[in-house]
C-alpha cells in the first residue's frame, strides 16, 4: 500500500519519566497532514505530557518526536513559530479585554489581527460583540473561543489543543468541535486531547490512551467495529443493586454503568434475555429492561482497559 499522505507529526517510542512515575511508556503514533487527530483518555493518562513534548516545552526521556520533519529537541525554535498551542489551564490574561488579548498574541507572533482575520473570523465574530469586556468576565465557552482565536492568530500549520472542552457546557462543546472541523477544512492539522469519549466520533482518527500507553489507534468507526462482541443495556429500579447482582451471575462477563443503563457483555456472547429478567426478578428487581445495543467508543475503551 502506498501512503498518499505525508505525516506531519511523527512520534516513535516516546517515553517520559518524572522523578517517581513513568508518565508515557513507549508511545508511537503519527498524524497526517490536515488530519483531525484525537488523543482520548482519562485524567492522568499522559496526554498533557505528550503534548508538552510535542510543543517543545519538555524533553522526551527517550524516543523520537518530529514535527514538520523537525526534531522537537534540536529545532524547537522553528517548530515554535509554526505551532498553535492551547494548554489545558490556559485562561488568557484575565485583566486584559478580549480585543487586547487577541492583539497581544497577534503582536508577539509578529502579525496583526487584520492579517489573519479570515482564519479566525468564524470564531471571533461570535465574541466580537464583547471585545471590550475583560477576558476574566467571559463565560467558559466564550473563553475557549477567545483562546482558540489567540492560538490561531498567527496561522499555524499545526494546532495542538490540550483538553479544550474540559469544563465547558454541552452546547459550547458542540460548537467548539464544529469550529475545529471547519478549521480542518482549511487545511490545518489538529491534534486534540479530551477525556470525553463521545467527542472521539468527531475526529478523523483517535488514539485511546491509558496509563501512558496507547491501547488502540484507528478511525472511530473502526474502533467500534473492533469491539467484536455483543453488548446489552440493562436497567431496573435499583441500579446499584443491579450492578452487584449482575456481577454475581455466572453468565455475565463485564458490567459497566453508563448513564441510566448498565452495559453488560456475556461470557458466551449470548444471553437468554427472558431468563436473565426472571433471574433478576427472583432477587427482587422490578421494571427490568434489557436490549441489545451497538457499542460506542467508551465501551471499547472499557474493554481495552481490561
Amino acid at each position, binding site marked *: 500500500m502506498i501512503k498518499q499522505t505525508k505525516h506531519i507529526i511523527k512520534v516513535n517510542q516516546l517515553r517520559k519519566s518524572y522523578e517517581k512515575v513513568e508518565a508515557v511508556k513507549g508511545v508511537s503514533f503519527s498524524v497526517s497532514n490536515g488530519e483531525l487527530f484525537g488523543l482520548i483518555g482519562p485524567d492522568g493518562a499522559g496526554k498533557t505530557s505528550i503534548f*508538552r513534548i510535542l*510543543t*517543545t*516545552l*519538555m*524533553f522526551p526521556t527517550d524516543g523520537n518526536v518530529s514535527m514538520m520533519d523537525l526534531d522537537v529537541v534540536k529545532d*524547537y*525554535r522553528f517548530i*515554535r*513559530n509554526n*505551532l498553535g*498551542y*492551547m*494548554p*489545558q*489551564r*490556559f*485562561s*488568557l*490574561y*484575565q*485583566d*486584559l479585554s478580549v480585543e*487586547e488579548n487577541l*492583539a*497581544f*498574541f497577534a*503582536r*508577539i*507572533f*509578529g502579525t496583526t489581527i487584520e492579517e489573519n482575520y479570515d482564519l479566525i473570523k468564524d470564531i471571533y465574530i461570535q465574541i466580537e460583540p464583547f471585545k471590550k469586556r475583560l477576558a476574566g468576565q467571559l463565560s467558559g465557552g466564550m473563553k475557549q473561543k477567545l483562546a482558540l482565536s*489567540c*492560538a490561531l492568530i498567527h496561522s499555524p500549520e499545526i494546532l495542538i489543543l490540550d483538553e479544550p472542552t474540559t469544563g465547558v457546557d454541552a452546547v459550547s462543546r458542540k460548537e467548539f468541535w464544529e469550529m475545529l472541523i471547519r478549521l480542518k477544512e482549511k487545511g490545518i492539522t489538529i491534534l486534540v486531547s479530551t477525556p470525553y469519549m463521545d467527542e472521539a466520533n468527531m475526529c478523523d482518527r483517535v488514539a485511546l490512551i491509558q496509563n501512558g500507553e496507547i491501547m488502540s489507534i484507528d478511525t472511530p468507526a473502526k474502533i467500534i467495529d473492533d469491539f467484536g462482541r455483543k453488548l446489552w443495556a440493562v436497567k431496573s429500579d435499583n441500579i446499584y443493586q443491579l450492578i452487584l447482582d449482575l456481577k454475581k451471575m455466572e453468565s455475565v462477563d463485564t458490567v459497566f454503568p453508563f448513564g441510566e443503563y448498565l452495559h453488560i457483555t456475556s461470557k458466551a456472547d449470548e444471553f437468554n434475555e427472558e431468563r436473565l429478567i426472571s433471574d433478576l426478578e427472583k432477587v427482587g428487581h422490578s421494571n427490568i429492561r434489557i436490549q441489545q445495543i451497538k457499542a460506542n467508543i467508551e465501551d471499547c475503551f472499557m474493554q481495552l482497559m481490561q
Partner: protein
Amino acid sequence: MKRFLGFVKKEFHHIFRDYRTMLILFGMPIAQILIFGYVVSNEITDVKIGIYDKSKDDITHEITNKITSSGFFILHENLNSDKEIEQAFKKGIIREVIVFEPNFAEKLHRDGTASVQIIADASDANTANIVTNYTKGIISSYMKNELMAQGYPYEIIPEVRMLYNNELKGVYMFVPGTMALILMLVSAMMTSISIAREKEMGTMEVLLVSPLRPLPIVIGKVIPYMVLSFINAVVIIALSYFVFAMPIQGNLVFLLLETLLFIFMALSLGILISTVSESQMVAMFISMFALMLPTMLLSGFIFPIENMPKVLQWISSIMPARYFIVIVKNIMIKGSGIGVIWKETLVVAGMTILFLIVSIKKFKVRLE
C-alpha cells in the same frame, strides 16, 4: 521590536488594572515614608532629664533654670552620685543627664572654661541626638547672651556622651532604609510575582511556545517595574526633602544613578526568585522571608549592625540593602562622591551581575 513593545504594553495594562498592585506601588511608599517620618519626628517636648550638679553654684543653677524653663525638658530628679546616673537611665524614664563638674563657677572665673557633660540614652538614637543638640543650644545661648555679654571670655565646654549606641546609628536612617525597603519590595517582589503569575495561569506555556525569546520576555516584564520603581524613588527623595527637610548634600544626579543601580539589582533578584518559584504564593513567600525581613532587620535599617552577634553581621554583609543604605546616607547627609562609596557601589553592581547571570542560566526555555 514591535513584539517586544507589545509585551511591555501588556505589562503596563496588568499593573494599571490591578488596584492592589497600584496600592503597593504607590500607596505604600508614601504611607511608609510618612509614617516613619512622623514617628521619628524631630520635635521634642517635655523630655524628662536628670541633673547631677557637683558644683551647686549660681551659674549651674542658672543654666539648670534655663534648661528646665525652655519647655523642652522637665527636671525629673536630682542625682547625687555617678552610680545613680546609670541607675536612672536603667529605669527608662529619663532620656538625658546633665553633669556639672565640681567648682563650676570657680573654674569658669579662674580658667575661663568649665565643662558640662551631657549624657543621653542613645538606644533611640534619633531622639538622643535631638535632645543633646537642644541642650547644647540652650547652654551655648546662655554662654553667648549672658556670660559673654558681660564681657567675660568665658567658655562652657559641653561634652556629649551617648550611652548604649555611641555611634548614633539611626539618625536619618529612615529615609535610606525605607527607600531600600520599598525599592526591594516593588522591584524584586513585584517582578517575581508577575513572572510567577504567568506560570501559574498557564500563559507562560503559550509565551514559551511563541517566537518570543526568553530574554525579551524577562526584560519586557522588568521594564515597567523599573520605570515605576524609579518614580517611587524620586517620590521618596522629594518627600523626605520637602516634608522632613532631610538634607541632600551630595549630587542629586549621582544619587539617582546609584538608586537606579540598586533598582537593577532588586529586579535581577526578582527574576532570580521567579525562576525558582512556580506560583505567585511561593514567589511572595520567598520575597517576604528572604528579602523583606532581612532587609528590615539585618541591613542596619532598624538595628545597628555593630551591635549584632557576629553570625548576623556576616549575614548582613550579603544584604544588598546594607550597602545601598550606606551609599544613600553618604550622598544625602555627608555629600560624598564616588571616591568615598566606590566600594559599596561595586558590591551592589557585582551582586546585580551575579543575579543576572544566575537567573539567565536558570531561566528555562522549557517547562522543566
